[in-house]
């Protein structure tokens, strides 16, 4: 095999790899990107029930209702509220007044059906998306953010 044909072979292989990678990424991106919406954005954009979403906000005090393994609660970004339904065990640090993120779909009844709820472990900590959403609605002061959040997922 000559030098030239070897180089051609490398280039072709590289292009093949690049093309395959690109094709995979594009198809996967199409179906699997999940947008984060604040309750205000949910109210404004009316996401369809088949769109996978992340939503988040502060859990409204007194809104958590447990019924067996099903939990219903409301999150707020201080401008709008969004009810969320989740079946399972909530993360240990899920509390009223705390920032959480939920992933799932909008139900036709206007209740967000979550199949994953994320909370952060430090009681002062706010998930980044939630903090930004609160900043947008003007109800968040810089500097009240805290350190060392630890992981805590509840997945189904």
């Amino acid at each position, binding site marked *: *095999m000559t*030098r030239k044909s*070897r180089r051609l*072979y*490398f280039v072709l*292989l*590289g292009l*093949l*790899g*690049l093309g*395959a*990678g690109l094709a*995979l*990424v594009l*198809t*996967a*991106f199409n*179906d*699997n*990107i*999940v*947008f*984060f919406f604040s309750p205000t954005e949910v109210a404004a954009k009316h996401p369809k029930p088949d769109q996978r979403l*992340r939503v988040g906000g502060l859990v409204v005090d007194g809104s958590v209702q*447990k019924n*067996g*393994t099903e939990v219903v609660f409301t999150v707020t970004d201080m401008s709008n509220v969004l009810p969320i339904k989740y*079946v*399972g*065990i*909530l993360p*240990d*640090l899920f509390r009223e007044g705390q920032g959480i*993120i939920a*992933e799932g779909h909008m139900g036709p009844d206007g209740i967000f059906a979550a199949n994953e709820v994320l909370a*952060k*472990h*430090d*009681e002062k900590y706010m*998930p*980044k*998306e939630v903090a*930004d959403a609160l900043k947008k609605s003007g109800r968040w002061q810089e500097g009240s*953010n*805290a*350190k*060392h*959040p*630890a*992981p*805590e*997922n*509840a*997945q*189904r």
Partner: protein
Amino acid sequence: MITELGHFALALALAVALVQSVLPMIGAARGNGALMDVARPAAFAQFVLVIAAFGALVHAFVTSDFSVVGVYNNSHTLKPLLYKISGVWGNHEGSLLLWITILAVFGAAVAALGRNLPPTLRARTLAVQGMISVGFIAFILFTSNPFLRIDPAPAEGLGLNPILQDPGLAFHPPMLYMGYVGFSIVFAFAVAALIEGRVDATWARWVRPWTLAAWIFLTLGIGLGSWWSYYTLGWGGWWAWDPVENVSFLPWLAGTALLHSAIVVEKREALKSWTVLLALVAFSMSLLGTFLVRSGLLTSPHAFAADPTRGIFVLALLGITIGGSLVLYAIRAPYLEGGGAFAPISREGGLLINNLLLTTCVATVLLGTVYPIITDALDVGKITVGRPYFDAVFVPLMVPLVALMGVGPLLSWKRADVTGALARLKIAAAIVAVVAVSTLAVSGTSLVALGTALGFSMAAWLGISTILEWAERTRIIRAGAFQRVIHLPRAAHGMTVAHFGMAVLIAGITASTAGRQEHIQTMTPGQSVEMAGYTLTFKGVATVPGPNYTANRATIELTRDGRLIDTLQPERRVFRQPPQETTFIRIHTRWFSELYTVLGDPDDNGYVTRFFYEPLVTLIWYGTLLMALGGLISLTDRRYRVGAPRRAVSVAAGMPAPEAAE
């Protein structure tokens, strides 16, 4: 006092690192031996100073000196000693100090073990190592000083997050860091070689042990992290494609590619500039891993507080290191060409495709990980790229890789006969067919079942062809096999063990993904749940006091065929300082499968409980351990021993080598 000494030692280390990065570089350029000789003592001095600084911080944590901010924020007098020590690296400042400590240890190791390196290469390598130290120590001293004091000193600390008080996590960051930092040595060697303009088989031999060591630590670190998240977080998951997991996986993928391409440089002197590029990429990914996690750019459990000055410093460090090395590469790489030609179908060709697939994996995983950061920065929307994306891009790239892993080792260098190699794998192919058909017969022909059959087939293919290759190489069924096994290079045994570990890992992933069962319910005492042949009976919950927490402890009796086989007591612990609740799961292990129990919140009529059945899940960690073990066996290969380079040089010079008989 000791804290101030530590701070001072770190400042001195910065000065030494500056000297180490400048003088030897000048010396190497001018052929001045005296200047080049500065590198080794400087590396040793830096080692002593950085160890002193690290020791001072450990001392502050162990003695609970709450006048130090980091100790106050992360420690508590009631914490067990192990977690006082692991608290040192459980925060941003301390974790960076750990990073730099490992860097100093590796630097001193190069200085001590690299006596046989050509003086210019050694001087330049240590100088690059010094530059990395300068960047990191300056970052610590100017933006993240772990030795800051508070006045007046508080009487008690805030405590370490209880979820981090776990032996698995105590050793997870040091392991990962040893992997990350190990690649800094490889990076330094690559930059030095680019400056010298020479990459050859000897260079590949010097670099290989460091690559292997880094790879082993990274493998163990990732495995440990996955195991920890499995048994502490309470949802039975071992990999979530969380950005933080991804950034530790990226250097692993690049490092794995590097390990394989370095073999081609070593045996055939081909793919030189590609290998150097991979060395640069592997360390760049490590830096990205260190900083993306710590900078708070990722919404992630591990992210510490974001501080804009830190962010800018980090970006500058990343830019200079990655950008600078790539510019150097662009200028110098064209001078590296040359080396053995080979046919597309050959061992080299196989390793090249391996590299192509692995780097494509790096690119796609990297894209998915940083894409949300980019869209957020450009303000085009907040998005998450989650598990479905990564599964969709990663699995299709792994399938051909694993298929190739079975055949590759049987191909000969330069030009190979692929039909011959496949013919030798007839048995493997037959067994794969049986595995695939029987999986489908059991689980039907749904899409999930097809995936499961594919997973098991891949595992069987890889496992069996790996063993076949080893058996053929040692001609295991002929007389004298024992001698041949002994004399086979350790690296060959290492490859067999690591590849087999990968097969075990794939089997574990497939089985635990496909056969996972989950039950969530509210239970009152006396109620029971049937699952995977077990009956789990809920006996009730008792309150039990612990040293720094109070626990609600459930009692769950496990029966199988009417016989009591185990009693599991999962807990929910409420810690006093910091006041947090944590889930403590309990697991029953039978062979390689596990039954996983979680206690949830009290409900009006009882307690919420969650049970998982995870078939063959432990194979994931046994497979990871086998891979690391394979690396370790490879590392003990005589050819890569510390004294080996000199002999290798003499071979190159045409002199008889003592190890030629091997």
